[in-house]
């Protein structure tokens, strides 16, 4: 039991971080349809600015956290206003490419400012590990979990109650409709970038004492967050949290009970299986469910039909997986 708890705690640490990053992906995606591939760089900037302020300039922890979040948000807002808004073309692909470029530029700038070596600072709550049901936890870990819970709660409140939150949701549901009632999707996208940068920065602040961070250390974390967001259903905020935590726990249990050499493979397999069964992800929008029917068996049936018939009958299927299936079929025949 204590071993299981220990694995679970490990999974919850990774999971909480993945959840924060996944939320950042979903926020921007929902409002603007952009997949922001510089998401991991927000984590990196938050972490490095925090270390620089706290350890490099001996500033109080609270000031350093606020500074790290503020600077990361500023970077994200500049990225959106100065570059993304200037794109004539509002299509997804050019915007995604811009974020790829931004991630490279941000990494290089970070390398110039913070140097090439990884940086680290002391845990926010220092101290010896204590025992919970036979498993051990570090004080910093508790703080990490508490912060993530509080952030998710605040975010829920923000979307349920605040005007800006509601306006962002409106953009997600119908951008044109939102514009008609006086909401600017462009501004909402900037707000989404700011919020998601803040979440990334907090994730950076929380993990930099645990793992350290260097100029190129954000990218892999960003991708983990994307996987988590997809797992939970890209477009669903609760899904991002559940997806993040699920990926973290699956990896930890796989490493603990199966084999640590294949834990990433295991997590990817679970993701693949899930996407086959529910292409919209764990908590993705449910109206898509009705069109193809939920569950693994009908889903596979639909895929097979698409393959044998050539997909012509399907018209324009809304699901990616089906589209891919038909196009592969088209190439084969």
């Amino acid at each position, binding site marked *: 039991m204590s071993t299981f708890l220990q694995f679970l705690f490990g999974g919850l640490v990774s999971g909480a971080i993945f959840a924060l990053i996944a939320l950042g992906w979903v926020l921007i995606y929902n409002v603007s349809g952009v997949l922001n591939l510089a998401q991991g760089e927000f984590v990196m900037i938050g972490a490095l600015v925090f270390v620089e302020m706290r350890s490099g300039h001996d500033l109080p922890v609270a000031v350093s956290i606020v500074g790290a979040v503020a600077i990361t948000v500023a970077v994200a807002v500049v990225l959106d206003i100065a570059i993304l808004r200037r794109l004539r073309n509002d299509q997804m692909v050019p915007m995604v490419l811009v974020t790829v470029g931004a991630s490279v530029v941000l990494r290089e700038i970070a390398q110039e400012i913070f140097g*090439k070596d990884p940086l680290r600072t002391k845990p926010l709550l220092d101290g010896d590990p204590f025992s919970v049901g036979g498993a051990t936890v570090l004080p910093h870990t508790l703080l990490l979990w508490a912060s993530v819970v509080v952030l998710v709660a605040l975010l829920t409140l923000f979307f349920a109650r605040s005007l800006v939150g509601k306006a962002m949701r409106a953009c997600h549901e119908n951008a044109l409709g939102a514009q008609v009632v006086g909401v600017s999707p462009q501004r909402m996208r900037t707000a989404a970038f700011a919020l998601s940068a803040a979440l990334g920065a907090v994730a950076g602040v929380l993990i930099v004492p645990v793992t350290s961070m260097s100029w190129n250390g954000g990218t892999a974390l960003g991708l983990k967050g994307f996987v988590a967001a997809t797992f939970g259903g890209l477009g669903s905020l609760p899904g991002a949290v559940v997806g993040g935590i699920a990926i973290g726990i699956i990896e930890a249990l796989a490493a603990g009970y199966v084999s*640590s050499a294949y834990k990433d493979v295991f997590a990817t397999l679970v993701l693949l299986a899930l996407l086959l069964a529910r292409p919209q992800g764990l908590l993705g929008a449910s109206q898509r469910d009705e069109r193809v029917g939920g569950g693994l068996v009908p889903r596979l049936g639909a895929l097979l039909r698409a393959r044998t018939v050539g997909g012509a009958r399907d018209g324009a299927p809304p699901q990616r997986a089906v589209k891919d299936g038909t196009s592969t079929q088209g190439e084969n025949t």
Partner: protein
Amino acid sequence: MRKSLPVSALVVLSVAALGACGDDDSGSSATTKAAATTVATSAAPTTAAATAAASTTAAATTVAPKPGPPIKIGAVLSVTGPGSSLGAQQKNTLEMLTEQLNAAGGFKGRKVELKVADDQSNPDRAVEQTRALIQEFKPTAIVGASLSGSCLATKPVTQEAGVLQYCLSAANIPTPAPLYFSAQSPLGAWIGNLPFEYFKEKGFKKIGCLASDDASGQLTVGVLKPAAKGAGIELFTENFNIADVDVSAQLTRLRDKGLDAMYVCTSGTGVVTVLQGMKQLGINLPTWIGSGSASLPVAALIKDLLPSKGVLTGGEKIQVYEALPADDPQAKQIQAFATAYQAKFNSRPDLFAASAADAFTILLTAIEGAGEGANTAAVAKYMEDKVEYTGVQLTYNFTPEDHRGTGLSGIVVEFTDKGAFKFVKQFKTVTDYVAAGSK
């Protein structure tokens, strides 16, 4: 018969003196003069294009000193990118040595021209940069690359162009190419034999290895498996992804094996994640860190995470240069170099700087020794036959079969809570457990 090289030692000394210039006028001028005299007496330029066969051992000392053409050394280093903690120090070192040699009148009267290119820690880029250097700068020798991957990628380019290459990483050289040399201790000895010598001495029976799934981790595991077998020690391995933020599941599995010591089979930031997990689980074991992490940036990173049983690694003398015994044959060079480096760049030189300094001096010695106009094959031959060098990092003695020319310093160092290294002990001999276990 081999000719030892006091001059190269003096180069370093005079460099140190120049570096300290201004603090101590009388001292520095004395040293410079001493260096100058030595150069004048022992290093008459051999104008004869000596193909440096064994018969020309006795250098022609009758020719009056006159400045020869400049010696051109190129360098392809990982100045930026993931390998930059190596390459930046190496660039510093080469530039410092060149500048100070030229200020003192060159290497035995010949000016040194240096051109450093950055491969951005990318083997493809290293190949491009090497080609460009060879075409535009036309160096006699190229120092680099910093990383194994780039060394192996550029090797065919230099060998085809007939340019001497001195790789700074511990990359394996299965069959030495004629113009390809390589620095550092053999990797297997460094990360496999030395720690197991230490484990055996301590009577350890079970070692746990937590390895990252990238090249550095898997390379380490590949060496540790035969080493453990050869040493008769049980090895348990778990893996993690270098981007993981938590490895407590893997550590729980290892903890339950009843280990005597831990081996952290990764480099860079992975070490932090592992040590943090050990702290969380209360695993207080003697811990060995792979030599890829035996660097000062890593030491600074983990200074508050050290288990009280100690964190050890295979080190080099330069990391503990203040604490070297006075009778150590390398002590003078190392201290002179380290002091000069520290004065100029306001940071401690690491072993990467030391290997670059040695490569540079060895190449200059061989190029100058082989004489003006000698082709690179003759220079390589000179290195194999005549160069025996007590360097800043190690001592070197090349043969046609051994283009690394060096063994193992056998030094074990401990990470301190000040972010530095502490000398633990030196093994005079280290058994080759990797070879024993590979059979």
